[in-house]
């Protein structure tokens, strides 16, 4: 993608939307709830969706529908971000990319209708391709309940969770699939992501402090003392203030999208270098695609006094060629930048 730096930034905002608009056939960009899978084949399995640190299943965080206009094989393209929300881990993150050409076996050639089809309100637990989805988290569910053989889970943790929350009573009843799925307190609240272009602002000159020659006839001693004891802007604070100025125009933004642009970092520490970003399996480099802002955590309502899901900025890097390794889900790279090192 040439001339990437001249590209305007798309800002994403979270909004409440009716459930039908967040289904797969409408190609949504959404936060929380169950993932609205794009391609129906090659879904990431439970091993791919396990937290790298603690091993427990990751929760779906958000998905972004980001097609590439000049690529026919990426007419539909989605990025799915998962995170670990179990304390004390709260750290594992994974992102997957899937793309489809316009003519594919899952969706029609034409755009979907803009109104709600006569879809039932029940949660879709099985893809058209026949793969079953976990009852708790909506990801691929290869394991089934051993008694009724009718409910599917992705892992033992989710099976125990569902058992305690109602499957124990419903397991033996014949038509329990028609009952509403209980709230397992595992999924994040569901929102739609709507986008707008960022206005080109000229950020107020947030200046650095250099050694300046003091002039003037003030009492020299007083200035020195004041200078010593006053709170000077450290480099951390300078970068943080720059971040705040940049988002001040639209403080509710939760996402900044721009393929190839320079990400807006929130801290001076923990900025990834070239060597920290691994290359794609196809051999090409990974470039920055979008970043998730910390304001999203206001919507997720997952803060606790102890350890909880927290980040400064989540930067997602994807293959520069957007290589198509089959019609499955390829793993990409996500970098988490915290604001401070503490807790």
């Amino acid at each position, binding site marked *: 993608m040439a001339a990437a730096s001249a590209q*305007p930034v*798309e800002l994403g*905002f979270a*909004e409440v*939307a*009716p459930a039908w608009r967040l289904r797969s056939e*409408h*190609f949504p*960009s959404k936060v929380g709830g169950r993932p609205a899978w794009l391609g129906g084949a090659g879904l990431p399995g439970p091993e791919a969706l396990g937290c790298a640190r603690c091993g427990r299943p990751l929760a779906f965080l958000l998905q*972004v*529908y*980001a*097609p*590439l*206009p000049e690529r026919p094989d990426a*007419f*539909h393209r989605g990025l799915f971000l998962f995170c670990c929300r179990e304390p004390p881990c709260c750290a594992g993150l994974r992102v997957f990319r899937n793309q489809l050409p*316009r003519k594919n076996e899952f969706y029609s050639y*034409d*755009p979907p209708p*803009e109104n709600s089809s006569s879809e039932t309100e029940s949660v879709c637990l099985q893809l058209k391709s026949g793969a079953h989805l976990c009852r708790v988290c909506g990801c691929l569910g290869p394991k089934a309940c051993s008694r009724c053989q009718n409910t599917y889970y992705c892992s033992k943790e989710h099976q125990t969770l569902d058992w305690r929350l109602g499957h124990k009573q419903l397991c033996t009843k014949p038509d329990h699939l028609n009952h509403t799925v209980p709230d397992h307190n595992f999924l994040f609240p569901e929102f*739609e992501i*709507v*986008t*707008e272009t960022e206005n080109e602002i000229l950020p107020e*000159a947030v*200046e650095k402090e*250099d050694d*300046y*020659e003091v*002039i*003037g006839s*003030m009492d020299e001693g*007083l*200035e020195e*003392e*004041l200078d*010593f*004891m*006053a*709170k*000077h*802007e450290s480099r951390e604070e300078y970068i943080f203030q720059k*971040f705040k100025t940049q*988002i001040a125009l639209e*403080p*509710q933004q939760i996402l900044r*999208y721009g393929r190839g642009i320079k990400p807006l970092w929130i801290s001076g520490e923990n900025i990834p270098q070239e060597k920290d970003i691994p290359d794609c399996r196809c051999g090409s480099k990974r470039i920055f695609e979008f970043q998730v802002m*910390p*304001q999203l*955590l*206001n919507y997720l309502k997952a*803060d606790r*006094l102890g350890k*909880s899901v*927290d980040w400064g900025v989540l930067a997602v890097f994807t293959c520069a060629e957007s290589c198509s390794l089959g019609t499955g889900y390829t793993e990409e790279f996500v970098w988490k930048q915290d*604001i*401070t090192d*503490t*807790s």
Partner: protein
Amino acid sequence: MADDSGAAGGPGGRGQSPISGRGRGCGRGQCGGLGARGGKANYKVWIPVTKLGRLVKDMKIKSLEESYLLSLPIRESEIINFFLGASLKDEVLKIMPVKKQTRAGKQTRFKTFVTIGNYNGHFGLGVKCSKEVATAIRGAIILAKLSIVPVRRGYWGNKMGKPHTVPCKVTGYCGSVLVRLCPAPGGTGIVSAPVPKKLLLRAARGCTATLGHFAKAIFDAISKTYSSLILALWKETVFTKPPYQEFTGHLVKTHMRVSVQRTQAPTVATT
């Protein structure tokens, strides 16, 4: 790029422009255009960016002191506004122009010192340099808020009324300078040089100080009011009973003195 072709359901369908979705606010209806944005009105509402900010906004943290207990650094000045907001008064101590020589001539910027305090136990000091005075003052106020420390006050003599002075003699060091703050009877006021006097006035009334131009030592001393451990703060030691006293009943029953139990020699246990 963010046209609403998605909303209109054009022939290209959803696979047209990257991430083009609906504009904000017209997600539910069919209206096009970016004008109908619902979120424009509340740009003054503080949306926190840090975890501490979110906890404060949700009222999970009741006071500033609680946030000190959690040892989380305060990065957003809105947090201080939330707790101390109305009672904070700021004062500009000094604005001094500083110059830099460039090829195109001299470049002047203004360096501003601002103190802030709530006249009831908190104060802070910030410095910012900027091309305009107003920007510098604004920036310095933010930094002053971020630098707020609590001040512990105590009594000089009788514990009457509210605490009015430093709790004990505190010393602050800076370089070769040593500053000592001593408690004083009420009514003394602050006896010190103008600069530290302005600072101390922000925090509390009734401290005396040795003469000194070196205010950092004073700041250091004040910060120590909460770090000194005095006798009154010692944790009450809970004395446990000595084992002989605690188990006296058991000892009487089973382990009698040899002189008494001559007849029952086998039962004497070797303790």
